[in-house]
């Protein structure tokens, strides 16, 4: 039996997605969803999820999130951002994903990754980076979250913890129990961010992908040092620090990553001027 559609339904439910209309909701077979919850918990691997399923989840996430973070209506800026982003993504292990990059209205300094290959970057972030190499580091970090399927993994781990070891063998566990489990997890999972090791991996990969793309990897350290110099309690950084380690911790990680690189030393590579005209891209929210 092909259980992948059930996995998708379960994941979308657990992520708390809102379908745009009742027609979409009515397509859900609740019995199947609860069955899928068991399957997801028991499978203990995100490897079983297909790329299509991952993208389906990602599209729902992105469509909903654009309500809060509308894209800047500047085609030139957006296409230029996509040229840079795709170029960096081509250096990853999943170059053929349908990568999408978008600059969104927000003065916060942040960037987001959704499963399946869509990356949102705030206006605040685009103003903060000093050059294209630093932007490549930021995009590389987010690309890594996608390629490593960090979000899908943390959801599954969370479900496993909540279900408990006994649930793994409890084939008779009731639908209500799984329903309550999913309700609880869906409220928590993505607002609390990823774990420290995932962020460290993404920072390391960001350095690596930027270097592979021909940029000076030391730009990643410069970016992080500048971030660390800002007051953490400023509004522009509040959301970032809610879900990420402090910039001072990340400076240490990035510095260590630079020291490990083989094939490109810090200082070797390009630092092109960033030609994105952020101010003209729709202005402030």
């Amino acid at each position, binding site marked *: 039996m092909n259980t992948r559609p059930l996995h998708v339904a379960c994941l979308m439910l657990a992520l708390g997605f809102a379908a745009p209309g009742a027609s979409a909701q009515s397509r859900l077979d609740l019995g199947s969803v609860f069955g899928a919850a068991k399957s997801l918990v028991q499978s203990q691997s995100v490897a079983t999820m297909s790329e299509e399923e991952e993208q389906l989840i990602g599209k729902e996430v992105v469509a909903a999130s654009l309500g809060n973070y509308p894209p800047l209506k500047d*085609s030139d800026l957006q296409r230029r951002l996509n040229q840079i982003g795709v170029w960096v993504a081509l250096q990853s292990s999943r170059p053929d994903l349908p990568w999408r990059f978008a600059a969104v209205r927000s003065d916060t300094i942040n960037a987001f990754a959704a499963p399946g290959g869509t990356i949102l970057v705030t206006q605040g972030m685009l103003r903060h980076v000093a050059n294209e190499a630093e932007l490549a580091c930021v995009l590389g970090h987010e690309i890594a979250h996608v390629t490593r399927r960090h979000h899908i993994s943390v959801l599954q781990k969370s479900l496993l913890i909540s279900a408990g070891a006994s649930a793994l063998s409890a084939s008779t566990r009731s639908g209500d129990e799984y329903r309550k489990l999913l309700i609880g997890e869906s409220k928590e999972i993505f607002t609390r961010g990823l774990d420290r090791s995932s962020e460290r991996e993404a920072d390391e990969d960001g350095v690596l992908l930027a270097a592979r793309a021909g940029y000076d990897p030391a730009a990643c350290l410069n970016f992080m040092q500048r971030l660390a110099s800002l007051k953490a309690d400023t509004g522009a950084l509040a959301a970032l620090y809610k879900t990420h380690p402090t910039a001072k911790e990340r400076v240490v990680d990035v510095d260590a990553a630079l020291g490990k690189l083989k094939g490109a030393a810090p200082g070797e590579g390009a630092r092109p001027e960033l030609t994105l005209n952020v101010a003209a891209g729709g202005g402030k929210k």
Partner: protein
Amino acid sequence: MMKTLLSLLLFCALLPPALADGGFLTNVLRSVTGAVGSKEAPAPAEKTAVLGIRGMDEGETKSSGPVSQDSKLLDSWAVGRTEAEAAAGRRGLAARAVDYPQSTTSPTTGNSPDLQEVK
């Protein structure tokens, strides 16, 4: 089947108020109750309680409005490999064989075509 449906309806009827403006699951459950005639079931179509992306504030997710057509714009701005490579070339960028030692199993780096070039 009928037993399952009755259990579900009972659960929906007993949903606490705290879940009333909750997420998708609540809306789904309510849409089910609406489908069988509950007078109290609100139309869920325009209420888009979202979550989703790491770093998005919980308050922001709850206040999300209806999904717009903006997502279609993202597709219109997408570029392919050829265009990205050409743009990089114009800026003097060239791909390099770079890696970390002993990272051959890395999901990000493991399938890289240039992995074997770096020792």
